[in-house]
């Protein structure tokens, strides 16, 4: 006899949740393609392919149902997030290796869906950044900045085998990100307003990059509307990043970029709506979510400004993932009838 009350349920399945997250990424990706060409699509394709193969193999070894756990979509979400975080002109084996490592060590070592302690995508990104710092800091210049416009065939060539293209073409295609550029130029004692006159800077953040951020913002708002994510995390993260950069900006606008620049450049928006909102590796209590978001905002700023790496999102997220069990146990909400 089964006693399975409640007999009725009303919930979206895990797959629906994950595929809505993928859907929400589409506007950002579309703008990415508009600004930088098809490179990102190739990366997403490679990442999806790798993740399905890797997961199938691991699930087969672990004698778990393959179809169910591939269709839950969580692997794809991690793979897509990694694919849009790395430079779109990185060689093909970068994304393949990153996805392989992030899925196996970030997810399946811990038991697969629901058990990972760390955000798989950010784990993959951090491993890649530490192992291949040079490749990971060569970003593509937006299409409309390159004099002789390169076509998508060149992008495929550079991803698949960079020796097929002349060095001049590659150099013409790549540069540092605005955050990286500011960092290196500041060490040369250039004032910020001069630095920001470089062509790679746009209206709010990096040229082209700010557009993508807006796309992610739209997707994030969709997720909020669909109640896939709660408002706590993005609000806490963005406001803490904004406030801390505002404080430094108001003290010394010559050395510290404006708060809006910090919010709109790098992975800030993607982080706010898609990365820290990963339920498995994040805190579950409302208060915990707020502390988590605030801490990541501060860490991102500290690493960007004082640390050795130009972008701090991946490290900040991994660092705060370490704190999650402690945050959860210390921020238990007041239970009905308890003091």
């Amino acid at each position, binding site marked *: 006899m089964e006693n399975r009350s409640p007999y009725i349920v009303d919930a979206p399945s895990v797959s629906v949740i994950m595929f809505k997250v993928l859907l929400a990424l589409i506007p950002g990706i579309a703008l990415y393609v508009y600004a930088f060409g098809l490179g990102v699509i190739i990366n997403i394709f490679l990442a999806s392919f790798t993740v399905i193969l890797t997961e199938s193999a691991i699930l087969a070894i*672990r004698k778990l149902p393959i179809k169910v756990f591939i269709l839950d979509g969580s692997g794809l979400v991690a793979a897509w997030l990694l694919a849009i975080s790395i430079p779109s002109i990185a060689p093909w084996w970068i994304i393949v290796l990153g996805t392989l490592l992030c899925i196996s*060590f*970030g997810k*399946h*070592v*811990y*038991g*697969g869906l629901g*058990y990972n*302690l*760390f955000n798989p995508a950010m*784990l993959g990104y*951090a*491993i890649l950044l*530490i192992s291949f710092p040079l490749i990971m800091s060569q970003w593509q210049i937006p299409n409309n900045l390159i004099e002789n416009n390169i076509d998508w065939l060149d992008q495929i060539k550079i991803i698949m085998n960079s020796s097929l293209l002349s060095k001049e073409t590659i150099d013409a295609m790549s540069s540092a990100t605005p955050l990286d550029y500011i960092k290196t130029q500041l060490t040369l004692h250039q004032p910020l307003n001069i630095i920001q006159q470089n062509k790679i800077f746009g209206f709010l953040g990096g040229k082209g990059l700010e557009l993508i951020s807006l796309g992610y913002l739209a997707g994030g708002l969709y997720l909020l509307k669909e109640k896939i994510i709660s408002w706590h995390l993005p609000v806490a993260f963005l406001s803490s990043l904004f406030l801390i950069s505002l404080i430094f900006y108001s003290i010394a606008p010559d050395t510290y970029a404006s708060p809006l620049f910090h919010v709109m450049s790098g992975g800030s928006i993607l982080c706010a709506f898609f990365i820290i909102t990963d339920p498995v590796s994040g805190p579950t209590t409302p208060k915990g979510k707020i502390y988590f978001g605030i801490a990541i905002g501060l*860490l991102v700023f*500290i*690493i960007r400004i*004082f*640390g*050795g*790496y130009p972008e*701090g999102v*991946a*490290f*900040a997220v*991994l*660092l705060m*993932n*370490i*704190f*999650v*069990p*402690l945050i959860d*146990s210390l921020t238990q909400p007041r239970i009905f009838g308890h003091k």
Partner: protein
Amino acid sequence: MIQHYFLIIISTVLVNNIVLVKILGLCPFMGVSKKLETSISMSAATAFVLTIGSMTSWAINHYLLEPNDLIYLRTISFIVVIAGVVQFTEMLMEKNFPLLYQVLGIFLPLITTNCAVLGIPLLNAQSSQTLIESALFGFGGAIGFSIVLILFASLRERLDGAEIPTAFKGTAVALVTASIMSLAFMGFAGLDR
């Protein structure tokens, strides 16, 4: 001056974390991190030994070894001193916190052989600092060790409920976790400049 001391703390706690960056003291880090409670007590005991140990070692180095040109005796005399401090801590705990004493078990005397505890005074002596600096160095190292041990224990407690593949159960997944933590701490690189 204050900024200098602050940087020493930042450097020892975060940037050059004794466990995650220097990879010292892995024995208690793996052994006493199964439960949050014990890890808290263990980190308190280690912090105590580390701070006292660094200070006494500094004194011995500064007043006994260096004036007499006996620097080659550093390692052995530090071991003796640390063993003494650990023994003292052990007796203190057995008297005042008998249950804790039982729970920590073999790991308490093993603080003696904890390479972190010997490593910090030795690193300290090499950079020949003042008493305050060496105390801060020891204390910072201890705080770094404690924070990481407690966080690691909280992660491992969470893992108790996870369905980890049999091959990775226990120490294996703990080591993977420790390495990811170490990876995350690399994000602090450059903060001590």
